[in-house]
């Protein structure tokens, strides 16, 4: 695959990931949120596959496959299962309101560009332009964690931060040593499972997954 086309594809996928982050901030339905997350992970896997194809690095194929298996299939299924078990309402509770959170995300995206602009020249990978996009996805995920009140939504925000991080790793270095990457995936999976367990516990203790109730510990 010629490098020009590969570069374009990779950039487009990365922008698609950011797009999906923005759409996740704009949505008010939880099922749609999980679908956007799984679509974002799909784009990530596709981007990894294109990178692998264009550079010949075979271990990136493995990473793409693992991303596909874990983040596109297993984790969204698990989140939906948790939601069903908790029997939570399908609305996303926001602290800031959707247009406000979208404008905040736009501001964060610009901040991310300012931070990473001086750095982008120092890499020689196919995907160096994506560093700014990856930090943007991380920041938007962080915003989602801070402004959404339901437990499962906070978990999705964390997962999107991890997606952005993986995009960043792909953009600066073609992936870290395989063992480390696999360990990271395992950690993410375990974290999601544990978050699901605790969301269930919160629901059982407080009869709601609105984290606004988690206010007893002060001072």
């Amino acid at each position: 695959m010629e490098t020009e086309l590969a570069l374009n594809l990779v950039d487009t996928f990365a922008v698609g990931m950011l797009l999906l982050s923005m759409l996740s901030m704009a949505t008010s339905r939880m099922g749609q949120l999980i679908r956007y997350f799984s679509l974002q992970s799909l784009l990530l896997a596709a981007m990894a596959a294109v990178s692998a194809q264009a550079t010949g690095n075979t271990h990136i194929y493995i990473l793409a496959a693992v991303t596909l298996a874990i983040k596109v299939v297993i984790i969204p299924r698990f989140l939906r299962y948790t939601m069903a078990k908790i029997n939570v309402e399908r609305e996303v509770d926001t602290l800031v309101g959707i247009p406000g959170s979208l404008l905040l995300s736009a501001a964060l995206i610009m901040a991310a560009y300012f931070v990473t602009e001086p750095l982008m020249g120092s890499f020689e990978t196919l995907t160096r332009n994506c560093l700014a996009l990856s930090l943007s996805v991380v920041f938007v995920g962080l915003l989602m964690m801070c402004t959404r009140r339901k437990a499962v939504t906070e978990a999705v925000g964390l997962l999107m931060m991890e997606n952005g991080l993986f995009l960043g790793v792909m953009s600066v270095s073609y992936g870290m040593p395989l063992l480390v990457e696999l360990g990271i995936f395992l950690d993410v999976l375990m974290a999601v499972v544990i978050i699901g367990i605790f969301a269930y516990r919160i629901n059982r203790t407080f009869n709601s997954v609105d984290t606004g109730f988690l206010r007893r510990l002060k001072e």
Partner: protein
Amino acid sequence: MIPLPELMIGASAVTAAVCALAPRERTISPASIAGSAVVLAAALAMAVAVGTDGPIRYGPWYIDGLSTLFSVTIAAVSLAVSMYSRGYLGFERREGILTTRGERYYYAAVHSFAAVMLLTCTVSSLGMMWIMIEATTLISAFLVGYYRNEQATEAAWKYIMICSVGITLALMGLMLVYASASGVLGSESGALDWPVLMAAASMLDPELMKVAMVFAVIGFGTKMGLAPMHTWLPDAHSQAPTPVSAMLSAALLNCALYAILRFMAVSDASVPGFSGGLLMMFGFASLAAAAAFIIITRDIKRMLAYSSVEHMGIMAIGFGMGTPESVFGALFLVVAHSATKALLFFSAGNAIQAFGTRDMDCIRGMGKRMPFTSSMMASGTLAIVGMPPFSVFVGEAVVLYAAVSAGLYLQAALLAVLVLTVFAGFVMHVFPMISGEPEKEVREPGGMARAAPMVMLLGVSLFLGLFMPDQMRDWLESAATAVLGGV
């Protein structure tokens, strides 16, 4: 040639398994204590080996003076926790709060937690270190939420969320370091190995290292308890069972500090002084926040948690200054703080179980009814606020001296004032608990298992404060060299 790292970690893992699966419930606690003792022995043997022969480097391990200092501290705290848990859980069993299954689950989690923390301090790859730190968050989340009531669940949730965010940001920093290193060294898997990184550190791009260090310090600092990312700490450390709180304060925070130190060593070779400045900034913020909250809080374990934040702040200041004396003092503080904090948590645990409340305004008259615990608590309090002849005083004094001799008079003055504020807060809360008349009938929760570790910890704290044997000094100096950039 005994494979010491494998022995140490393996013993911890095996103990976890044994506790989970032991057939007779009376054997669980002794097995746990025995296992911890083996782990401590292996850690000490490792320290001696490294002291005489130099760093251990094979397979996935890289163990130098810094690693052994931290591992021995963790192993010692684990042993103390195992011993104390016997008495603590025994009380809870008698009260009916706990079942056998709960006890197995507790010990299995505690020992796997210890194993993962030991792994953090001994692996050579920074990536593996990161994975192990994330694993500590995941395992300890269950320990924090152990009691499953509203407050514990809230604390565990905040803990998971905030630390996961922090760890993710730290991964961003790790990724940038890797990118810079693999650009210089080629993308072989050696680029995340700490010794390899140190060798190539001066060639790394400074701008990149600055951004990476900001992420790493904020990320790992969240786990370490630096303000303003410390908000999970008081909740988690107060809602967890008391022995677990001791482990969290005295061992886990050290692991996060270890990670920051490894990163700092690499960054200082490329951008000298930048990460030091960051650490000092966060250190002072932590100190100030802790001082404020210690005065207003009412829960005894929250006060101790804020004291951990304070000491992490002082250590950050010490490491941030970057002079050999300040680093020596900060490393000494690591050991001193762990011993003293564990002692304090144990005595607080005794008080809480006897009085049935964590509210310090409701606990009175400990001196009359619980002489042993109150003497332990009084000594622990004096130790932790930095009174001689205890060891924390030595550490803080060295850091203060280093600040003055480096010409940082303002920082030294601020440090002194804030430590004094903490002293006032502690004394204000603790001594009324010991004096006065108790409102209800309380008894000293007895048992050798509780008393022995407390006495041992007090002994360590006193001993280190009074004497500095040569081996100790050499050990601390070799650790300091590792921090300051020697391999």
